[in-house]
C-alpha cells in the first residue's frame, strides 16, 4: 500500500475543513469566497474519486486504513478506513457538496463567508462520520456535524428558523447521549474504542457482563440512529428542519445527514450486536413500515412543497431500515443503494424546491400551478427527478426499492406485502404534487414571467440527473463494491440463523 492510500482518507476529510480555515482569512469579497468554496469542494471530490478507482472490490474488510495512537489515556486512536458500505457514502458527500455551493451561488447573499465556512465544516464532519473506525472519533464527528448544521438552519433559514434549529439540535443531541453511554460502557469493558477490536472482543465472547448489557447497548446505539434516520415516531424534527433550512442545508441534511443514522445501524447495531438485532428486528421493521406508509400519506396532503419532500424522505428511509433489518443480501444491498439513490434524487428535489423558492419566496404548492409553461427546462428536470424518486425502472430509485422489497419479502412475506404498497403511495404524492405545481394554466399572474433555470442551476442539476440515470442503468458499478461488505456484515446472521434452525 503506497503512501497516498493510507493518507487519502485524512486528506479527503480535512481538505474542506482546511478550506474553511483559509476562508476565515479571505477578505469578504463574496464572489471570491464562492469561487474558493467551489474550488475546495471540487478538490475534495477529485480526491475522493481516488477511492473507487483504487478500491479492491473483491475484498470485504476495511481499506485505505490509517491507524495511529492519538491519545494514550483514554486509549483513543486516530483510526480511519472504509469498506464497501462507507465508500459510496463518502463519495455521495463529496458529490453533493459542490452542487450545494453552486445552488447557493445566488440565493445566499448575506454573511456569505460564514455560510461557506459552515458548509465546508459540515462536509468534513459528514465524511469523518463515515470513515472513522474509532468509536470516540466517530462520536466526535457525529456530534461535530450538529453544530454547523444547526447554525446553517438557525442563521440562514427562513421564518421559524430558530425553533427548527433548536428542535433539530436538542432532538438529535439528546438521542446521541444514549450512544455515548453505550460507547463508554464498551470502552470500560474492552479497554478500547477501536471498532474492530471491540467487534472482535464481542464476537469472541470475552466481554464481561455482555449478556446482560447487550440489549441496552443495542438500544443506546439504536436510539441515536433512529432519531437521525428519522424513524417513526421520532421524525417530527425533520419536516421543520427542512422547511426552515436554506437549500444547501436541506440538500446535505436529506442527502447525507440522514444516512448517518442508517449507516450507524448497519455498522454498529448489526456489526456489534447481531443477536440483539435479530431479537429487535420485528418491532423495528414495523416502525419502518409505518414510516413508509405514514410518511407517504402525510406527504400527500402537505400544502408545502418542502415539507412534502421531507415526509417523502421519511418514507424512503423507512425502506432503508426495513431492508437493513431483513438481514437478507437483497435487503442490505438494496438499503445501501437506496441511501445513495435517495441522496442523489432527494438532494436534487431540494435543489429544485430551492430554485422556485428563490423566484417566488414561498413553498406553498397552491401558489404555483402551470409552471410548465413559463419554465419548461425546470419542469423537465423536476419530472425526471420525480420519476427517479418514485422508482421508475432504469432510474436510480427502482434498484434499491426492488431489492429491499424483495429482501423484506424473503424475510417475512407480510413485510414485503405491506411495504410494497409504498410503490402506490409514492406515485400518488409525487404525481399529484407535480400536477398541481406544473400542469394546467398559470393561475397566479406573477408566475407568468418566471425565468427558467440559469447557468449555475443547470450545472448543479445536470450531474444529479446523469447520476440518477447511470445508477439505474448500471447499478453493478456500485453494487459490486457494496456486496462483499454486505456479505461480511451478514455472516454472523447466517450463523445465527443456522443455530436457531438447529
Amino acid at each position, binding site marked *: 500500500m503506497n503512501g497516498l492510500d493510507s493518507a487519502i482518507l485524512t486528506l479527503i476529510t480535512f481538505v474542506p475543513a482546511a478550506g474553511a480555515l483559509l476562508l476565515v482569512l479571505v477578505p469578504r469579497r463574496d464572489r471570491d469566497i464562492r469561487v474558493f468554496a467551489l474550488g475546495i469542494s471540487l478538490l475534495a471530490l477529485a480526491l475522493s474519486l481516488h477511492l473507487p478507482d483504487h478500491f479492491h472490490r473483491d475484498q470485504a474488510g476495511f481499506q485505505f486504513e490509517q491507524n495511529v495512537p492519538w491519545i494514550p489515556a483514554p486509549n483513543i486512536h486516530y483510526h480511519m478506513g472504509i469498506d464497501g458500505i462507507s465508500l459510496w457514502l463518502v463519495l455521495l458527500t463529496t458529490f453533493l457538496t459542490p452542487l450545494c455551493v453552486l445552488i447557493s451561488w445566488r440565493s445566499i447573499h448575506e454573511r456569505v463567508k460564514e455560510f461557506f465556512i459552515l458548509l465546508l465544516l459540515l462536509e468534513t464532519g459528514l465524511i469523518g462520520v463515515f470513515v472513522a473506525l474509532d468509536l470516540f472519533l466517530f462520536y466526535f464527528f457525529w456530534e461535530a456535524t450538529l453544530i454547523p448544521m444547526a447554525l446553517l438552519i438557525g442563521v440562514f433559514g427562513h421564518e421559524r428558523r430558530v425553533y427548527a434549529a433548536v*428542535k433539530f439540535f*436538542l*432532538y438529535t443531541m439528546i438521542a446521541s447521549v444514549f450512544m455515548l453511554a453505550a460507547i463508554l460502557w464498551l470502552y470500560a469493558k474492552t479497554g478500547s474504542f477501536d471498532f474492530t477490536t471491540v467487534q472482535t472482543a464481542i464476537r469472541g465472547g470475552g466481554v464481561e457482563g455482555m449478556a446482560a448489557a447487550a440489549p441496552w447497548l443495542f438500544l443506546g446505539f439504536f436510539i441515536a440512529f433512529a432519531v437521525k434516520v428519522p424513524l417513526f*415516531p*421520532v*421524525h*417530527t424534527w425533520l419536516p421543520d428542519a427542512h422547511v426552515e433550512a436554506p437549500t444547501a442545508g436541506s440538500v446535505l441534511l436529506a442527502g447525507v445527514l440522514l444516512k448517518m443514522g442508517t449507516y450507524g445501524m448497519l455498522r454498529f447495531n448489526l456489526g456489534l450486536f447481531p443477536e440483539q438485532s435479530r431479537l429487535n428486528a420485528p418491532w423495528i421493521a414495523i416502525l419502518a413500515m409505518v414510516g413508509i406508509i*405514514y410518511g407517504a*400519506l*402525510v406527504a*400527500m*396532503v*402537505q400544502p408545502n412543497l418542502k415539507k412534502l419532500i421531507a415526509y417523502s424522505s421519511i418514507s424512503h428511509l423507512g425502506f432503508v431500515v426495513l431492508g437493513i433489518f431483513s438481514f*437478507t*443480501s*437483497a435487503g442490505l*444491498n*438494496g438499503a445501501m443503494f437506496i441511501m445513495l439513490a435517495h441522496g442523489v434524487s432527494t438532494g436534487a428535489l431540494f435543489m429544485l424546491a430551492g430554485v422556485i423558492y428563490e423566484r417566488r419566496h414561498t413553498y406553498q404548492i397552491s401558489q404555483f400551478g*402551470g409552471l*410548465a*409553461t413559463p419554465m419548461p427546462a425546470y419542469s423537465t428536470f423536476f419530472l425526471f427527478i420525480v*420519476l427517479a424518486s418514485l422508482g*421508475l*425502472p*432504469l432510474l436510480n430509485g*427502482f*434498484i434499491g426499492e*426492488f*431489492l429491499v*422489497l*424483495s*429482501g423484506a*419479502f*424473503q424475510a417475512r412475506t407480510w413485510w*414485503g*406485502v405491506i411495504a*410494497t*404498497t409504498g*410503490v*402506490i403511495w409514492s*406515485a*400518488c404524492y409525487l*404525481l*399529484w404534487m*407535480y*400536477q398541481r405545481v*406544473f*400542469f*394546467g*394554466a398559470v393561475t397566479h399572474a406573477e408566475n407568468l414571467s418566471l425565468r427558467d433555470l440559469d447557468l449555475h442551476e443547470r450545472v448543479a442539476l445536470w450531474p444529479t440527473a446523469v447520476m440518477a440515470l447511470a445508477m439505474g*442503468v448500471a*447499478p*453493478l458499478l456500485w*453494487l*459490486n463494491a457494496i*456486496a462483499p461488505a454486505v456479505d461480511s456484515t451478514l455472516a454472523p446472521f447466517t450463523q445465527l440463523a443456522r443455530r436457531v434452525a438447529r
Partner: protein
Amino acid sequence: MTPNLHLWLLPVLPLVGAAINGLFGKRFNRRAVAAVALIFSGSAFLIALWVASQLPKMSSLPHVETVAGWLRAGTFRADFSFYLDQLSVVMLLVVTGVGFLIHVYSVGYMWEEGGYYRFFSYLNLFMFFMLVLVLAGNYLLLFVGWEGVGLASYLLIGFFFLRDSAAAAGKKAFIVNRVGDFGFLLALFLIIQHFGTLDFDKVFAAVEPYQGETAGFGFLTAIALLLTMGACGKSAQIPLYVWLPDAMEGPTPVSALIHAATMVTAGVYMVARSHVIFERAPSALMVVAIIGALTAFFAATIGIAQTDIKKVLAYSTISQLGYMFLACGVAAFSAGIFHLMTHAFFKGLLFLAAGSVIHSIGGEQDMRKMGGLRTRIPGTFWTMTVATFAIAGIPPFAGFFSKDEILWRAYQASWAYWLVGLLTAFITSFYMFRLWFLTFFGQYRGSAVASHSHVQPAPGVIEVANQRPRVGEAENAQARGLSGTPVQESRGHEHGGIHESPTVMLVPLAILAVLSLVGGWIGVPGSLGGSNRFDKFLGPVFRSTTPALTQEHERPAESVPPERETEGAEPQTGHGTELVFTAISVITAFAGFGLAFLLYWKRPELPDQIAASFHGIYQAVANKYWIDEVYAVIFVKPLISVSALVFWRGIDQGVIDATIDGSAEGARELSDNLRHMQSGNLRSYAGWVAIGATGVIAYMLWVGMR
C-alpha cells in the same frame, strides 16, 4: 449455429430517436423532427421484419441474447437479456408495424400542434419501452418495459397539459397502473423466493415438473393471481379499467397506438408469456376467464350510451381486451394473441379514422354533432367501415376469425363463457354500427365548423339531429379548405370546414384497412376449410408444456390445430358443431347491425323513447355505473382526509409534537422553578443546605437500618 441477431438494436433505435428529439428537437423544424422520428421507428420495423425472416433459420427457440449484467444481490441476478420466440415475433411485428404507421399518421395529425418535438420524442420513447417489454428475457426487464410504457402513456395522455382534465387523466392512469404493479411486484418476489431467478427460460424450466394445483391454492396459483392483478391494471380489466376511458384525453394517435393497439395488450401478452405458470393454476385461469368475460360484457354495455366517439372506442377496447383475457382464461392463448393482433389492426384503424373524423370537423368529438360525413370524407369513411365490420365480427373481416375462435374455445370450457361472449358480440356490433350511422349517415348535425367553439349541451342523442344543419356554410368552408394550403388544421382552432385528411394520414388508414380485412385469413379454422396457420405458428410456444389438467374443460391441446383437437373428446361432432357456432356468431353480428340500422337509421326517434322509458338503466349506463364516483368515495376521499386529519394534524402535530413541545415546556418550567432556588439570599441557601443534609442523613440511616 445460432446467429447473433443483435436484438438490442430493436429497442435502442427508437430510444436514440427519442433522445435526439427530446434534447435537440426544440431547435429543429417540424420536418426534421418528423424525419428523425420516422427514421428511427421505421428502421426498428425493418429490423423486426429481418428478425422475423431469420426465424426459420434458428436452430433453437427460444433464442436468448444477453447483452450485459444489470443487477445482482447475493445469488440473485438479472441481466439485460432479450428473448425471441414466435410469440415475441408476433408482438414485434405488431408493435413496430402498427407503431410505424401511427408515427406516419401523427406527422399529419399533429402538424399544427405546439410541442411537436415533444410529442415525437415521447412516441419514440414509448416504442423503446414497448419493445423492451416484448423482447425482455426476464420478468424484471419485462417490468422495465411495463413501467416505461406506463410513463410514456402518462406523458402522452397529459400531452395537452394546460387542460386540467388531461393532466388528471395522466396521473390517474399511472396511479391505477401502480395498483396493478403492486401485484406484479409481489408475483416477482414470490418467483424469486421459489426459483431464485426471474429469467424466463429458467423459471419456466423450473415450473414444468410441477403438477397442476387443482386441489387448492398453491404458490403457483398465488403467482398467477398476482400476475393477473398486474395485467388487470395494464390491460384495463375490472376492477382497474377506470383509467382507460380518461386516457382519451391524449391526442388521438396516442389513443390508437398506446390505448388500443399495443400497450394495453401488454397484460394479455404477459399472461400468455407466463402460460406455463397459468396452466398449472386452474383456479387462477378461471379468475382470468371470469374477469375477461365480465369486463367484455360490462364495458360493452357502457359503450352503448356514450356520445363521445373516442369514449365509445375506449370502452370498446376494454371490452375487446376482455375477450383476450377470456381466451387466456380458457387456456386458448394463441387465440388470445390472434385477437390481440387483429384488434391492433382494426382498433388502431378505428381510432385513427375517428381522429380523421374529429380532425375534419375541427375537433368535435360528440357524435350527436356529426352525421352525414360519408360523402365529405370518403377515404375516412371507407376505411372506418372496414374496421367497423371487422370489430363487429362480420366475415371475412379479420375480427370475425379471431373472435369466433375465442367464442368456440370459450364454449368448450363452459357454455356460460360462450353466452356472455356472444351477448357481448351482439352489443359490440350494435354500438359500433350506432357509431357508424351517427357519424357518417343522416345529415350533418354540427354547427358550421368555423364557429364551433360554443358547444350546446344536448340532452338526447337525436334531439340535435333534428336541427337543420347549415350545409351551405359548411360546404363553402370545405371548398375553402380544399383550395387552401395543404397545412393541417389544428383541433379547436379556426377551421377551414369539413375536409378530408391529407395523404400522410390516409395512407396509414388504407394499410390498416387492408390488414383489417385480410389479417384474419392466416387463422382460418379447419371447420371453414383453412388450417389455422397462426395457431400452428405459435404452437411451439404454447405446446412446450402440457400438464395433465384434471378439469375437463382445461384443454391442454393448445398446439394441436382445432380440427384435430375436437377429435379427441367428441370425434363425431367436430366441424359440424363448430360450424353451427360460427353461424350463430355471424347471425349475432348481423343482428347487432340490424338493431343499429333500426334505431339510428329507420326510426331515429326510438333511442330517446327507449332511454326515457328505461330511465334508471339508461342513466346508470350513461354514467358508467358511477364507478368513478364510487371509487372516489371509497378510496380517494377517505385516504386524503385520514392522511390530513388523523395522521398529519392528529398524530404528527397533535400527539408527537405536542408531547415533545410539552416536555420542552415542562423542562423549562422545572428549570424556572429551580432558578428560584438561586435567589442570592443567604438564608434561603442555608435552608436548602439544611434540607439537603437532612435528606442525606435520612438516607444513611435507612441504609444502615437494613
